[in-house]
């Protein structure tokens, strides 16, 4: 390389723009928040005192924070497992040759184009305990009117539902593409051998979908952990009694409602480590562990 460019400077000059952007928007804020996490602050850092690791100790001994970890785990498990199961089911359905299948496909992918705020508002109208459509139906059918807002378990269920619905289109697109890439010969060979539909699905189709599924598990995990703030904020604001306060929502409350920038910075460091773990997992597994076909 040296001989070609004559000097060592050129590659660095070419890299400079992306390095500057990374430093400005990535490394500098990351280092800043790491430093901030060692302080107790007021008014967005206008006043602060150094406390060392106290913020981290406070977090891991706080029942509220530990609770938000558990909520996050339940929430993301729900979003990933139920969400992917439904997406796969729908993708298989719309992969069939039916009349007007394109319209169905568009209709199903559509929610993904909505902003979290719009998605949240739609669900808020549907699940409003006194004026919502869902309760109108449950009341006229079974005479019950569940309180989706003030019952913690129901609220969590509702938020998981909204988060799944919001991301459904994304998952369906990937599954649909994967389904259409399955070599027909294999399925035909199975037909010749007299395999049942269920056998074919689990032994053949599912096998070919593994890489996509793994990819979607990771992206959905990241989505559930970090991108669901909007839905939660509009639907429940983390309530009732922290029942839907995930890690990211807890961070928001501490930073912008309680003005505890130091504590919030400590939380962002913890989240940062989690994202790093997930990213490493994604690189490792999607590249190495799955092989099939050619």
């Amino acid at each position, binding site marked *: 390389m040296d001989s070609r460019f004559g000097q060592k400077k050129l590659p660095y000059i070419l890299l400079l723009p992306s390095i500057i952007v990374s430093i400005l928007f990535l490394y500098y804020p990351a280092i800043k928040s790491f430093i901030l996490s060692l302080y107790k602050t007021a*008014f*967005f850092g206008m006043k602060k005192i150094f406390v060392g690791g106290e913020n981290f100790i406070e977090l891991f001994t706080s029942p509220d924070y530990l609770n938000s970890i558990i909520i996050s785990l339940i929430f993301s498990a729900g979003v990933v497992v139920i969400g992917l199961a439904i997406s796969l089911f729908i993708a298989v359905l719309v992969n069939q040759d039916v009349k007007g299948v394109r319209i169905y496909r568009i209709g199903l992918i559509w929610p993904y184009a909505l902003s979290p705020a719009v998605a949240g508002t739609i669900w808020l109208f549907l699940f*409003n305990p006194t004026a919502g459509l869902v309760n109108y139906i449950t009341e006229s059918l079974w005479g019950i009117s569940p309180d989706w807002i003030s019952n913690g378990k129901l609220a969590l269920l509702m938020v998981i539902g909204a988060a799944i619905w919001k991301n459904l289109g994304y998952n369906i697109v990937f599954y649909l593409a994967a389904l259409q890439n399955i070599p027909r010969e294999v399925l035909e060979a199975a037909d010749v051998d007299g395999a049942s539909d269920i056998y074919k699905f689990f032994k053949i189709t599912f096998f070919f979908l593994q890489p996509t599924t793994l990819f979607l598990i990771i992206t959905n995990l990241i989505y559930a952990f970090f991108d669901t703030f909007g839905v939660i904020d509009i639907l429940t604001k983390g309530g009732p*009694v922290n029942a839907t306060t995930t890690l990211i929502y807890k961070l928001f409350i501490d930073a912008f*409602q*309680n003005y505890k920038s130091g504590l919030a910075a400590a939380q962002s460091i913890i989240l940062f480590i989690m994202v790093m773990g997930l990213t490493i997992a994604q690189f490792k597994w999607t590249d190495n562990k799955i092989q099939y076909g050619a």
Partner: protein
Amino acid sequence: MRGIGRVLAGLLVVTITSLLMVVPVSAEKVKIEFWHAMGGGTTGVIDRMVADFNYTHPDIEVAVQYKGSYRETLNATIAAARQGTPPNVIQSFEIGTRQNIDSGIFVPFQELLKPGEVDWNDFLDPVLNYYRVDEKLYSMPFNSSNPILYYNKDMFKKAGLDPDNPPTTFEGIIETSQKIVDKGIAKGGITWALHSWFYEQWLANMGQNLVNKENGREGLATEAYVNSEKSLKIIKWWKELYDKGLWTNPGIENWSQARQNFISQRTAMLITSTSSVTSVTNSGKEQGFEVGTAPIPIPAGETRNGVVIGGASLWIVKNEDPAKEQAAKEFVKWMSLPENQIRWHKATGYFPIRKSAVDVLEKEGWFKQHSNYKTAFDQLLETKSIRPTQGALIGRFMEVRTIIEKAIESILNDQGSIEEVMDKANKDINDSLQEYNRVVH
């Protein structure tokens, strides 16, 4: 090269100085920015008031901007002040008082005034009592409100209750609600947003401070009283109402859902801010029922001490340019003039904060035509001037409110006994207070 550089630099200096010399002549107007938190129809009221101010003050130009909620307005102000481009006047809610003072980005309003420039005797006592800290007014009270009971007179008639005699005690609320629900007139008896504000009002009304150090007014508070006997009395009543299915829960801080419950006649009573008098009364009319109002209930046998003034005030942000601070002062003074207060009250339902404004309204017969405003007003004027009704000064008031609301919610959901949950809440508030004091002072 150097020679040319110097010539260029010289030219630049000459141009800039000549520009600077021209500027003061061509722009006499002092431009200031005003950020507020009044959404919906009220934005228009503010816009029109500011336009009138600009029209009558040729030397000042106020640019007005709606910045979202009180919290968002304050967040934006702090961020802008840190970057050196703050607005000049902002509207900030009452519970931000302690924090605003400690932030150091505001000029105490009274320090900008010459003696006698504002006649403080003309201001209503409960309003001054709230905003005066260490004998000084840091901000100019602007929009003030307090909670009252709204009730559906037609439902009262149907239930065989006296429509001119609404319940005034905790026990009365339970009894009335029970009758309404038993007779199938409405699904619930009463509703109000699950908001700490109402709880604070009851506590003050019963004469109990929220925090120590004389409600945070004789030094920084270090301990809360949410597990005190009077506090538990409120929570027990609330829980009883909920358990009997008489109180409909609109959700945490969900003002609009509470109103919706009442207007769509799912409940016979509503407790909410006086700033809703106009809209609730009108919506009731549209739905075909008459709305009555009454002071908020208190437990039978307790002395009524009155309410804490809620709402917001106008704060002047420190500025390097004294002309801007002076212009900001003129604007804030103008907003509090009696005629502007009358206009503000009629358009929104917030109280006028000056005695002379109240006198004019009375002479006009305004309160006779609008008896629901009178309820609100009497409740305010009958308030005793004691520490609890003066309102607590707390650094992280938002966090304290969240703690209280979550505690109440978990009690309603049977997640622990009332005493246990309130003890824990008290401890959490103490931690918040002490951490704030540690960081700020």
